[in-house]
């Protein structure tokens, strides 16, 4: 799931750089940093922890939830790591930078906050076993990767959710080696797409008990995009049948690169190479001077899949240091379900 490369935001926290590079900064070379190798075996629990020799890395949770009031909610919890140099060190001058994003989306509102920290001083970090990922008071912590407690708070929201894995980890691409462009850029990428969720959202109108499903993505790399790729559209969908689909579309100057994984209810994964999935915007929304597609047609002929995807709240724009669209979606058509959509490069 290469599309979550917001991480380089961290490289852009200082203004000016942001303007100069934008998302294209993800396409810069990997000099001095480790590069993913095809055929390498993922090691657990070690690989749940950080990989400081790689330039970017993230722990990315999205969840589709239903409140006691019967309404749909979505939450996001993300911890990004960005390395200025390929090592870690103690103290303020550690070259490892961390950024957290957390959001709650309702049909009517979108609450969002962000956090920054550097490595080396204990303000943010990840340990593999027992598992703990944190930045300030935001945390994803558990005895192991299957049983997690997820917390975050912003100026207008807090949430506290318990996650319980109901299936195995899923490796994308070739046993976790996920190709991102025709030129061969790649990342290590695995997911836990089936956490059952129970917990509470605390919103301005009061606390709301919720239940639902969460999807966790783990990805790390050093040079995940090719030079001409400027943005992406990424989908994680859970169908009522129990099947799941991860798919993304990278927008290059002249062509699109698509990829994905089909996951059966028991966790069997089938990689979907370039061109197998097609995603077409069908409706656009204009807000704050940006034009963002909020409805899509997604087709996967191999699985007789032809679905309409529409945003729960078209205003799920993450307008902070680094702006992108991320929010829950509904799925209708040949398959019914819910999911999450992320779109970058539209600002």
């Amino acid at each position, binding site marked *: 799931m290469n599309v979550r490369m917001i991480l380089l935001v*961290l*490289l852009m*926290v*200082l*203004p*000016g*750089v942001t303007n*100069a590079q934008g998302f294209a900064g993800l396409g810069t070379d990997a000099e001095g940093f480790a590069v993913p190798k095809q055929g390498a075996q993922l090691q657990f629990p070690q690989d749940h922890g950080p990989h400081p020799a790689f330039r970017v890395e993230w722990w990315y949770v999205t969840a589709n939830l239903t409140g006691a009031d019967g309404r749909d909610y979505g939450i996001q919890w993300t911890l990004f790591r960005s390395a*200025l*140099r390929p090592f870690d060190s103690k*103290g*303020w*001058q*550690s*070259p490892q*930078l961390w950024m957290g994003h957390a959001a709650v989306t309702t049909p009517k509102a979108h609450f969002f*906050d962000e956090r*920054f*920290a*550097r490595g080396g*001083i*204990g*303000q943010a970090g990840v340990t593999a076993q027992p598992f703990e990922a*944190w930045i*300030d*008071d935001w945390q994803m912590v558990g005895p192991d990767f299957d049983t997690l407690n997820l917390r975050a*708070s*912003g*100026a*207008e*929201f*807090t949430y506290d959710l318990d996650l319980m894995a109901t299936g195995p980890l899923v490796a994308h691409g070739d046993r976790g080696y996920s190709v991102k462009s025709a030129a061969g850029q790649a990342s290590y990428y695995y997911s836990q797409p089936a956490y059952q969720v129970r917990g509470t959202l*605390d919103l301005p109108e009061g606390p709301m008990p919720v239940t639902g499903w969460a999807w966790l993505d783990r990805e790390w790399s050093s040079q995940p995009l090719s030079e001409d790729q400027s943005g992406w559209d990424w989908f994680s969908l859970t169908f009522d049948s129990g099947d799941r689909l991860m798919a993304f579309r990278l927008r290059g100057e002249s062509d699109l690169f698509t990829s994905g994984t089909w996951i059966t209810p028991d966790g069997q994964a089938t990689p979907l190479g370039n061109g197998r999935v097609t995603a077409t915007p069908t409706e656009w929304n204009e807000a704050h001077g940006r034009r963002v597609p909020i409805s899509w047609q997604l087709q996967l002929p191999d699985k007789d899949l032809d679905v309409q995807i529409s945003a729960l709240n078209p205003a799920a724009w993450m307008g902070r*240091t680094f702006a992108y669209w991320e929010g829950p979606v509904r799925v209708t058509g040949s398959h019914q379900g819910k999911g999450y959509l992320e779109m970058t490069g539209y600002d």
Partner: protein
Amino acid sequence: MTRAIVQAIWSHWRCHPLQLATLLSGIALATALWSAVQAINTEARANYANAAQQLAAGSLDRIVDPLGPMSLAQYRTLRRAGWQVAAVREGRLTVAGGRVDLLGVDLLSYPSLPAITEVSDVQGIAPIDALTAPGRLFAREVLAKRLRATPDLPPVIESTQVPVGTVLTDIGTAGALLGEPEQISHVVVLPNQPKGAPALDQVTPGLRRISAQGDGAIASLTDSFHLNLTAFGLLSFAVGLFIVHGTVGLAFEQRRPMIRTLRALGVPIRQLRRLLLVELMVLALIGGTLGLILGLYVAGALLPDVAATLRGLYGAPVDGVLTIRPVWVASGLGMALIGTAAASGQAFWKLSRMPLLSTPGARAWFEQTQGSVSQMAMSGLGLIALGMVTVLLADGLIAGFALLAGLLMGAALCLPLLLSRLLNIGGRTAGSALSEWVWADMKAQLPGLSLALMALLLAMAANIGVGTMVSSFRLTFTGWLDQRLTSELYVTARDDTQGGEIELWLSQHSDRVLPIRALEMEHNGAPIFVYGVVDDRTYRTHWPLLTPAQGVWGRVMRGEAILINEQMARRNNLWPGDSVTLPPDLTYPIAGVYSDYGNPTAQAILAMDELPRFGLPVPNTRFGIRLPPDRVGPVAQELRGAFDLPPGALIDQANLKARSIEIFDKTFVVTGALNILTLGVAGFAIFTSLLTLWTQRLPQLAPVWAMGVTRRQLAGLELLRSVILAALTTLLALPLGLALAWVLLAVINVEAFGWRLPMFVFPLEWAKLGALALLTALVAGLLPARRLLQLPPSDLLKVFAHER
């Protein structure tokens, strides 16, 4: 047609170039002094705003550990509890040419620092450079040069947004440069705290949150200084407008026949009014532009001294460099336009309503412009009363200035009545017909001259008042220095270890050693320095106590009581009999209050043995050394040699006193300069008034001349008249000036600086000033007198032939 009218109107200025020059200089002078003061104020304010913005010191709360620096663990605890804070590390950095303030801020938590934003907008600085070793330093141009000249420092980036004299950098870089990299001076509480974060005392008991108002003290101090300057600027502006008023009145008066002719030729009054208005505004813009240029030079010349004053008095950071701001230009020109309009409104109104065929009466113009003399005096008294009521009802600097303004304006309005009474008295002493005529003539001229004389009164009073204040202050200050700086030599050690060695060495090489040890803590949200002193007759005999009493030092030395400085006493209204509680929780009764000029912060003195009770590390690096004066040089040299001390570590008393006096004198150089300028403008106002009156003088002089008084005599009498009026005004300015001085010393100073000064009078200074005023009046009268002297007798004869 319009062209012809314009030519006709303009022809007046062609015939009277001097008048044009006077008008333009009037507008220019008014604008110049006003805008100079504005430029200085704006520049200084921009500098403070800058300094405050760097840490949003003015708007964001801080969290500190009252016991000393914070630890990284405390920071981490705060963060893990959800508190959004940015860590700050402050220290002093030794660079080429001295020590500078180093400000290390966590740039990642606080990326919106203006200095960083500015630099990155222009140069695109990369996070990798700023955040990882060796890091980057940000400083203003001048300091950046010094930093680059210092070996082993990180690369330097110039930024105009960094406070003057400060090096800004990331906290990581600051830790590397200052040592103890995990140490944090304090944290800034960022906006947008998350929902439901636990309270501070639950997270990190012992840490204290300090609200942003803590820095307000400096702001109000500097505000007072700027208010002071603004008052001066307004005074000069008003004085300049007197000139404009006089000149415009004259010009319109002289153009009456022409306007009558134009109207008789069929030019509508509306068109004439419009054209005259345009003419005035064009002149105002030209004069205003000249004034701005002049103002820029004046401001440029004064700003370095203002900067020195602000730094010396309040520790407020101000650069000595001036930038031209569009707002400043706009407000300067606006003031010129408004001022000209105000000063010429009356003349303009009269002219535009002049009946078509009226015969202009020369005397009538001036008489009508002035209200009844006694009415003016009544409103003057009213203004004075209003000022007094304000100061009785309200506290604060603004009330003090309201009193000042009421006093000055009121006195100015009373001036014509007082002068006319004085002239009446003078008239009674007249022995001859001629002298009786001179007195009567002066009284007749009074309405036309009264504005200029008011300007002179204000300028003189300001001079006497401010002069008295400064001189009183200086006398008190030097006396206080003598009391306060009693040790012959002061030494500062590098650290406590060296301090101990020096103390031992000195005990064998000097009469007595007085350790100077201090703790910085907080009292009522403001910093306070608590000094520990050993029992020594130096303190008992010399210390400048404002509230001397029996046994004060005995109580202090036994640890039973505390001494506080005047600033702290006045600010918190604490006096002997009250008590002070200092953190963590030690209470001492106040035994006495001592004067502490030039220090903006609160200070207190305790017995040395009391300091350890506060539980803070007490540095032991500074000592006062008592020596016979002739041994100062040799001992200093030996000390330096024995401990390899840098030049700044040893200060001898004589040197320190000289430097303090120098700073003091610089402080008031601005005030002095503005004083002289105001007086100059007042002199110019007299000059223009006399010139204005000149044309109306002939009908009055001609009969006297016809009766046999020579032109030479008449010219002499003209000069005499000018000097007598100036002398009478000076006489009246003296009590006003002294009243002003009293208000400055007893009201304004207490509000602005926190101390009250005894008033000393300097009659010799007044004599000098009086002579200066008379000289000014004499010079102002010279040109009209010379004209009279050279006037062809035929002109005087014509007076009888003409209708006018």
